[in-house]
């Protein structure tokens, strides 16, 4: 393999890893606060891409406006999902919520087949984002360079929100102790809604960029990325944001490099994530950055 080829794969892997990271954050945020694996998260990602598709084809708004609006709208869908599918079950056993999440996932998939049809749709990417540029003999899709930049910017914003703002503090408090948080006067429902909004917004941004990079939309496009990003979150240590990002990059880069170095294993591309999950669960079940929770009495 030439160095050019390697760099090309590296760019590819980095951008795929960025997409995974964006999606994995949603899993980890929701898990941190509700102790729930939101299995409908992959479908939120799919809806983000479809909403942007319809925004581009049905309106004459500039593409970046469409992308922002579609992400906000998807965020609202995520908030609604929590209100309808999870909130009524908040005091039920965790498994009930999980079943509700799987139900919501199927509902969204089938709703998408009904509304958008099962036939693949070509994503009408704006021309500026679809070109190829050459850097020192390496040809790279522009979008593969944009994706990591957008991801890093969003991660910095997210980190600031969680570390520095009162709402971010409330989120961290809620992840530790609901009741104590409500004793502080924190509006639990509002914070949970906010969490779902952020997670779904990031998933939509991921979905849209996915649509540009792999310009074919189908209603089940969220299933595999959804599962892989759940794995990414577990590998990094679920509940830990940095861990989710790390897990996303490991999966994305690993997947691309696997195909690059061992082309005969291309068919096992999706299996890579699952094998990695099994290894991590065997060696470090709490994930790479996950902590054991020890409480002082």
């Amino acid at each position: 393999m030439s160095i050019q080829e390697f760099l090309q794969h590296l760019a590819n892997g980095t951008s795929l890893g960025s997409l995974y990271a964006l999606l994995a954050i949603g899993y980890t945020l929701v898990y941190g606060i509700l102790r729930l694996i939101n299995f409908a998260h992959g479908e939120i990602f799919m809806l983000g891409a479809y909403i942007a598709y319809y925004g581009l084809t049905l309106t004459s708004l500039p593409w970046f406006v469409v992308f922002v609006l579609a992400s906000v709208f998807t965020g609202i869908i995520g908030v609604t999902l929590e209100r309808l599918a999870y909130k009524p079950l908040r005091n039920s056993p965790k498994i009930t919520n999980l079943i509700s999440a799987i139900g919501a996932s199927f509902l969204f998939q089938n709703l998408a087949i009904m509304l958008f049809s099962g036939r693949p749709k070509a994503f009408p990417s704006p021309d500026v984002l679809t070109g190829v540029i050459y850097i020192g003999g390496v040809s790279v899709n522009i979008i593969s360079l944009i994706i990591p930049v957008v991801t890093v910017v969003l991660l910095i914003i997210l980190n600031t929100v969680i570390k520095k703002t009162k709402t971010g503090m409330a989120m961290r408090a809620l992840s530790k102790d609901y009741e104590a948080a409500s004793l502080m006067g924190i509006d639990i429902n509002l914070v949970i809604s906010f969490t779902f909004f952020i997670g779904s917004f990031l998933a939509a941004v991921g979905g849209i960029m996915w649509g540009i990079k792999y310009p074919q939309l189908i209603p089940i496009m969220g299933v595999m990325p959804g599962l892989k990003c759940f794995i990414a979150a577990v590998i990094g240590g679920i509940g830990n944001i940095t861990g989710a990002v790390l897990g996303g990059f490991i999966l994305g880069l690993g997947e691309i490099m696997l195909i690059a170095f061992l082309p005969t294993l291309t068919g096992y591309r999706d299996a890579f994530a699952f094998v990695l999950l099994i290894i991590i669960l065997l060696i470090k079940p709490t994930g790479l950055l996950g902590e054991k929770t020890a409480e002082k009495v």
Partner: protein
Amino acid sequence: MLTIDNLHVSYGGIKALRGINLKIDDGKIVTLIGSNGAGKSSTLRSIMNLVKKEEGSIKYDGEDLTNLPTKDIVKKGIALSPEGRRIFSNLSVEENLILGAYTINNKQKITEQMNKMYDLFPRLKERHWQKAGTLSGGEQQMLAVARALMIRPKVLMLDEPSLGLAPLLVKDIFDIIKEINRQGNTILLVEQNAKKALEIADYGYVLETGSIVLEGEGQILLEDDRVKEAYLGDAK
């Protein structure tokens, strides 16, 4: 004035409170004493609406709190420092205090109050940047009290503030409670350490299996034979 009228609470069919009546006058220290499971914590948790009430009402200054969401009760100026401290161990000491003032939007007021807390608890100032989970038990208790004080509550409720603390620290905590009261806060104190609690209380209630069996001024309860026998460990 905080009043509780005919309060009934049960958990899964087991009665925790069987129609209790309480009155907490402004500016006083009122204590609830009783053994484990008598319903002391349930009373405090009912006031914050953390548990479902079967019957009864809770009023503060004539306003009905019975069905108000917890966050709105906090906004009325009632704060609870819960049993077992329940500090946010993953947050720094300072962040815990900031969250204590979650309902206050005036940044300057928050800083002022935080400095007051640091004066009251110098240990917390020294450790303001540390994760709260790394504090010692006594420091965590101080943080829990300070956190509840961040809204300058009109009524401060403390659930077992001396639990698990070394005797010297217990004395500190009680001194601080008196000091807070002197600054004008009404205090509702739940304690296992009945002697200490009655010594500083203006008024006390004795709870037994969900009912109030005795009430009176702190000093009088301290002298009461039944209280002495059951809670103060004095042989006759």
